């Protein structure tokens, strides 16, 4: 059936009193950005809600798109009718009959915000509920645990009728809580960490380390694809590609195989921190999950984390791998993440990496390298290539692609 409106309820931000207006207009911008493919839509904002008039647009697809926009609590496809009992009854039946799976029990829920409406909510409850029951064989009322709740929202501009409430992504509108750097490998965890951070309103710039020719171009392409997927949620994401070959080969020659991951990770954090400074980011987000691999034991996290001064945000730290995989499937990064290209951390993995590295030993090695380490960190930062990813692809490479456009 064709609904007239999508009713969007904004999420956590409605809890905040003073800046509500600002948040709401930020949210409206995000919603419009997500729905640019539907120019026929019209938007009305009212206290913590956005009414989207469909004007014939495909409501199902627009709704599906909105479920990926952060800051949205729930979404309902609704019918809007005049203040006329017959019309309301008609719409109520239509909405209920369109509901899948077919409900066997329901309850009425009437909200009369516009007090000039002639019938009060109890009366409406009865008048419409009885009509629905008469016209729906085998439907019963269950006020405790109904299969569906048929809702009438009586406002001055009309009556909204609906019974479907689809959960949104929740969280805050993107950018509301500042900016952070995301350590983006090609694996399953880091894109999920990025998505989780973005859902909390953090703007993200991704940092990826590559060791060409020890790692392949495909490994980088994979990360580009992951960043592009994150851009679907974020609108536009910077991806910093850091050349890590020199540093990695230097560290690999220190005859400290069991510490190489620890040493690499510390250098990566130092580089990320420099990039964060340049971008004005105030934290570093990682996909660490406690105990998952040697570098993510508490001992390793301690020694590695001390290399950075910025706060390290680890949204997945207490999550199980299966939970992380489930999110990664839901947000559409899993299929890319499991492509079999080695990133620079899997490359020099020793047979027995340290699970409890000694901070003093690690610092000793770094001190011995002294200026050389410092110089290579600087060179890596200087050699970093930055791509701007949008949901459609990569901004810089658009020129190259346009030469190929003639073939498509």
């Amino acid at each position, binding site marked *: 059936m064709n609904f007239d409106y999508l009713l969007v309820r904004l999420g956590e931000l409605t809890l905040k009193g003073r800046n509500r207006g600002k948040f709401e207009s930020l949210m409206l911008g995000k919603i419009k950005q997500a729905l640019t493919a539907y120019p026929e839509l019209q938007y009305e904002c009212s206290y913590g809600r956005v009414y989207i008039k469909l004007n014939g647009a495909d409501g199902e697809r627009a709704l599906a798109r909105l479920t990926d926009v952060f800051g949205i609590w729930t979404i309902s496809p609704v019918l809007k009718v005049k203040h006329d009992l017959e019309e309301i009854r008609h719409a109520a039946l239509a909405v209920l009959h369109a509901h899948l799976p077919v409900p066997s029990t329901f309850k009425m829920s009437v909200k009369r915000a516009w007090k000039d409406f002639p019938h009060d909510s109890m009366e409406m409850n009865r008048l419409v509920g009885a009509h629905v029951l008469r016209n729906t064989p085998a439907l019963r009322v269950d006020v405790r645990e109904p299969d569906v709740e048929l809702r009438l929202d009586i406002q001055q501009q009309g009556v909204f009728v609906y019974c479907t409430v689809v959960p949104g992504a929740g969280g805050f509108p993107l950018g509301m809580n500042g900016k952070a750097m995301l350590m983006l490998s090609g694996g399953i965890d880091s894109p999920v960490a990025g998505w989780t951070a973005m859902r909390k309103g953090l703007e993200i710039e991704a940092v990826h380390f590559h060791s060409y020719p020890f790692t*392949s*171009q495909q490994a980088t392409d994979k990360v580009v694809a992951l960043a592009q997927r994150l851009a679907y949620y974020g609108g536009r994401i910077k991806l910093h590609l850091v050349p890590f070959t020199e540093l990695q080969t230097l560290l690999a020659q220190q005859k400290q195989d069991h510490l190489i991951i620890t040493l690499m990770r510390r250098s990566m954090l130092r580089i990320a921190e420099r990039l964060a400074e340049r971008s004005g980011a105030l934290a570093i987000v990682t996909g660490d999950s406690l105990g998952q691999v040697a570098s993510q034991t508490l001992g390793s996290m301690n020694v590695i984390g001390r290399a950075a001064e910025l706060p390290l945000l680890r949204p997945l730290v207490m999550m199980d791998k299966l939970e992380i995989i489930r999110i990664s499937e839901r947000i559409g990064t899993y*299929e890319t993440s499991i492509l079999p290209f080695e990133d620079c951390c899997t490359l020099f993995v020793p047979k027995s990496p340290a699970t409890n590295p000694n901070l003093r030993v690690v610092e000793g090695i770094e001190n011995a390298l002294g200026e050389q380490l410092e110089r290579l960190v600087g060179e890596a930062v200087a050699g970093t290539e930055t791509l701007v990813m949008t949901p459609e692809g990569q901004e810089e490479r658009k020129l190259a692609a346009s030469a190929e456009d*003639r*073939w*498509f």
Partner: protein
Amino acid sequence: MKTYYFDHSASTPPYESVIRTVAELMAEHYAHPSALHRAGTDAGKLVERARAAVAGLLGAAPGEVVFTSGGTESNNLAIKGILGLAGRKTRHMITTAIEHSSVHGTARQLESEGVRVTYLTPDEQGRVAPSDVAAAIADDTALVSVMHANNETGALQPIEEIGALLRDRPRVRFHVDGVQAVGKIPFDWARSGVDLYSASAHKFRGPRGAGYLLVRDGLKLHPLLAGGGQESDTRSGTHNLPGIVGMAQALRLAIESMPERRKRMYELRRRLLSHVERIPELVLNSPSDERLASPQIVNLSYPGMRPEVLLHMLEEHGVLVSTQSACSSKSLKPSRVLTAMGLGEARATGSIRVSFGDEHVAEDIDILAERLQSTVAKLKPLERN
């Protein structure tokens, strides 16, 4: 003498720009799209771009597009791919008696391997009934395979209704052979209830040797070919990059122009039918109601006349049509499709198929009709009743 090519349902002349694209890609991107070096990854990216383009045009997800060598492979892959993974308890398939030989032959092959196959018969208009599909479903049914538009008569099959009735039976997969329909009949993959949809590029003015199979997200197929694991292990074999990109372009051109082309082709069909009405020897085998018919196919019978005689006489006048009955030197086999429609032996044996395309205008149809008329007049004294 000018040639009037009325055999578009067999194969179409490719778009000029598609021919150029295929040639350029052959020259510039000869590297193996699965190779690791730059030339290979560039070629691989073009395959993925083509996949995204095809998916976008059809309302599918890129991961739902599997590139194949064409319609026959897509149909084989869909059917064997499902039944190859079906357990012993699901060894039943429902199809129709009017499918293209690549579906029909696959069904026959599977029958010889112990799969039960139900062949539904159509009505006189060449259309199967959704209720017959529903009635044929058994506990062990793994697959329903029904074509979108019939290749001999152009009769449209009620795939939306069948898709809707199969929605409640998620264990029964639904395959649609869309080879004759792509670019001609609107189709909404996202809401169709169809799990697998076959297409072939050279039927919509793309290159030969390229096709695709849409596979509903999450559905696994048993591969026909073992090898390098291309197409997510579903279809091994070096990607036919020129064919794949050429197909993506042809599909775009076909889909973008579909509304105007449909209108034009239905006008041509009406024009041809009004001419044919005045040739009493010829009987229409395609649906008379154009809402049930593809715009570009008209199937006619001259009962009592060997169709290849008609075909060769028309050919002498530069008019190319096809017969659908496979003739061997001695025996004349009636069309399986027309026989299933219950049209009788004389009609089923004497049919020709006229199928037109973008290059045709009203005058071409007039010339076709005129030559049909004069040919029939010449053959009239030779009728065998």
